């Protein structure tokens, strides 16, 4: 055999083995698209316990919704788990979510109020879409929405990229007359030097660098930073906008996969798994549960907060229009 033939045979062997390992390797099993930071750890625990394969695809919330929309009725996912029920309602309106996935659990009153009538998604807990995180040395710290909207050098995340930012924007709009009347308040903030970062962490970086004085960010990120560094202080405004984390199952998947997906949702809501999530290191443990058990030991009682929940049935279908306007006018 000549050198060329040997080389060709070796090359062929390498190509075939690469192709085999790329295409026929580990079966992805249950595919979960998630923007929730703790998802990889939870999925790993699920795989450990059940022995069944599962793959998590972590991405920012805006990107997740776009990818799910692009895949449309030929989904590659079985479960989506992200923050913001407006997005879930929009996906449900496009008939992408399976109905009747909500299990009968010991829901708290807040939790029960957050559940959709058609059972198209399950609420796995909630955080607050926007709390005020300021440097302690700031001369005048904003305490209310009126303060923050009039203040200079405020930062928030871009709702086109960051999942939690749209419910925050919707809440701010709702406080100022809804859509499109609320545009005026946002324009006022732009005039005051509103900084829009691609994500909550990038807004925090701007705060630490001193480019802004106050960040309106998700409660998890704000509380984690304030607990780690006493130079920063968190103010929970009244009202504070509820940001539910939601999990849903793909409508257009075979029934066996749907059953597996629903089993994952049941796993996610088990009290021991929720307790375990509350003990994990990092900001992700700082969520309020929506079931009576377990209780969150590390956060103020939700009953003592003034909470508001912009109606996802109103704001969900408006998401494309509102975010498009934000991209066009505020990001310019």
């Amino acid at each position, binding site marked *: 055999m000549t050198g060329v033939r040997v*080389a060709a045979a070796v090359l062929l062997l390498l190509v075939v083995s690469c192709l085999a390992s790329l295409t026929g390797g580990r079966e992805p099993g249950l595919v979960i698209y998630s923007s929730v930071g703790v998802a990889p750890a939870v999925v790993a625990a699920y795989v450990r316990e059940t022995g069944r394969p599962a793959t998590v695809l972590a991405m920012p919330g805006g990107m997740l919704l776009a990818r799910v929309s692009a895949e449309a009725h030929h989904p590659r996912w079985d479960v989506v788990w992200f923050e913001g029920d407006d997005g879930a309602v929009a996906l449900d309106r496009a008939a992408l979510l399976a109905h009747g996935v909500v299990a009968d659990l010991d829901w708290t009153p807040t939790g029960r109020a957050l559940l959709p009538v058609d059972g198209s998604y399950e609420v796995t807990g909630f955080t607050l879409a926007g709390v005020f995180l300021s440097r302690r040395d700031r001369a005048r710290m904003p305490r209310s929405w009126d303060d923050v909207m009039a203040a200079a050098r405020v930062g928030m995340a871009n*709702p086109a990229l960051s999942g939690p930012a749209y419910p925050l924007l919707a809440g701010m709009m709702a406080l100022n007359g809804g859509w499109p009347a609320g545009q005026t308040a946002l324009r006022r903030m732009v005039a005051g030097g509103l900084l829009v970062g691609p994500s909550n962490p*990038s807004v925090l970086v701007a705060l630490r660098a001193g480019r802004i004085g106050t960040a309106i960010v998700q409660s998890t990120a704000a509380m984690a930073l304030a607990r780690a560094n006493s130079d920063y202080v968190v103010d929970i405004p009244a009202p504070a906008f509820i940001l539910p984390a939601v999990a849903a199952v793909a409508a257009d998947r075979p029934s066996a996969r749907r059953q597996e997906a629903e089993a994952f949702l049941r796993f996610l809501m088990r009290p021991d798994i929720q307790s375990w999530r509350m003990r994990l290191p990092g900001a992700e443990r700082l969520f309020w549960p929506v079931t009576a058990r377990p209780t969150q030991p590390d956060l103020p009682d939700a009953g003592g907060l003034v909470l508001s929940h912009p109606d996802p049935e109103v704001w969900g279908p408006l998401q494309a229009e509102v975010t498009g306007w934000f991209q066009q006018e505020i990001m310019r």
Partner: protein
Amino acid sequence: MSGTRRLVGAVGSCGPSVLFGTVIAISFLYPLTRFLVLPLMPDWAPLSGLGGASRPGLSSGALWNTLRLSVEAGLLVIPPGLLAGFLLERRRWRGAGLLSAALWGVFLMPSYLLTMGWQIVVAAPFLADGAAGRLFYGEAGIVALLTVKGLAFSSVTARAGWHAVGADMDAASRVHVPAAWRRAWLTLRLLLPVAGSMFMVQMVAASQDFGIAATLGAQAHMPLVIYAIYQNLSTVPLDFTQAARLSWVLVLLALAALAVQARLGRRDAMAADRLRHCPGMVPCGRGTAVLAWALTVGVMLAGVAVPLLALAVKAAGDTGAGDDLLIDGDGWRGIGLSLRYAFVSAVFSVVLAALILGGRMRAGGSGRVVARMLLWLTSANMAVPGVMLGAAYVIAFNGRVLSLYGTPALLILAYTASHLPIAIRFLDAPFAHLHRGLGEAARVHGVSLTRRVERIYVPLLLRRLTWAWGMVFVTLFFELPLSEILYPAGSAPLGVRLLSLDDTLHYGAEARLALVGMGICLAVTAAAIALVPRVVAGSEMERTQRRGRLGNAGAVEQENV
């Protein structure tokens, strides 16, 4: 064995046209056509649950920014590009090798890593709040990086131009034009088509550069068309039709530039035909030497050393984001996936390119026509940026037929299709220089196609084929836009992993992963380029020598008989 030979013979005689036609139709024509007709047929867009109604018109800000920045980068690249070409083609000096190496380094450095390196530098407290920070996070920074990135390709064009302005012209102008400034002016006028060509190529490259637009452009809040297309495909609100409209702008810009370049190239070739003698290499004068070293050091620092050093410092230091100084499992997995994806796709690209270019050499007229058509089609594909091809693939391969979206097969197909033109461009000249008579003579003497490939074509082209593979491999290893749009669930290649670390501000982990990835990629490429031709050629030589010895022994035996 005879069956294989018959199969190869059959494929050799008529198969390629059908095979390549099918490949081109599936990988280019069908997806791109389906995507680009969306402005006319919006119903062909996939269901956009969060898309709402498509916004009419084009984003004027992004269009104006893209046009302005591309033109600026196109103009800025001409002086250093011409100087680099002049120094490498017309002057003998000790730093020529270093300048070549620096330009290769710039060519191979992914633009998002180049940007990231400079972002780390500019983040230094004494720069961040000053004029340097403001300039970097603005038009000046983007144009500067685009210019540095474009210098590698522009200098290749410039070298060809300086080569074409031959020694005869130099001698004639020295005799007939006494004033030195007028001689310089004449030379510059002769180089005008080359400068035009450089401008066009750089303008297209700058308008399609995703890495800089997605990092610096996005952070500087400077919308650019290429990133606007990506945003329309991957963020809320989703708008495939608007992405297709914006894509038309880039395609038309690129096609116009390619047409102008082709016209300038013809003028250039006509000028070169008239010139007989290649220019000689003259030693550098003192002034030129200073200029040469300044350019070399500048390119080396701006395009390679500073970004790499910044990455290395960041990789070794405390990141403040809770990273440890190791690469995590996802990082290693990304490197492993990129190695395999890039290896397979680079092999496919080079083999397809070789088969297409080989078809051009065939005796039959029809094969040559088809090969030329395929060549033209794949060259036209250079006008298609990766983001656009990715968008086209999402639409084309996410239905009931050819349901490949989200599979490794589609990513390999996309990688292969997007890099086939590069492989063709690289191998075009070596194939054109092959004397057709070699193969013809062997064919007339009854040597089969397999034997001809094995004994004639592969030994002659092996080194170039390996280099082409290496070049495609390196660019695919760090590929970003296609990977971002098409990567299968749970299998994020290196580029996606790096950008994800960048988004979550884990700069230290990103820098470490990038550096380790670069090291592994360059080691694999260097090993392949150094070893493959040597091993194959060594084995061939050994075989020939053995046959020679056997032949001699046979001759001696015959004499004895």
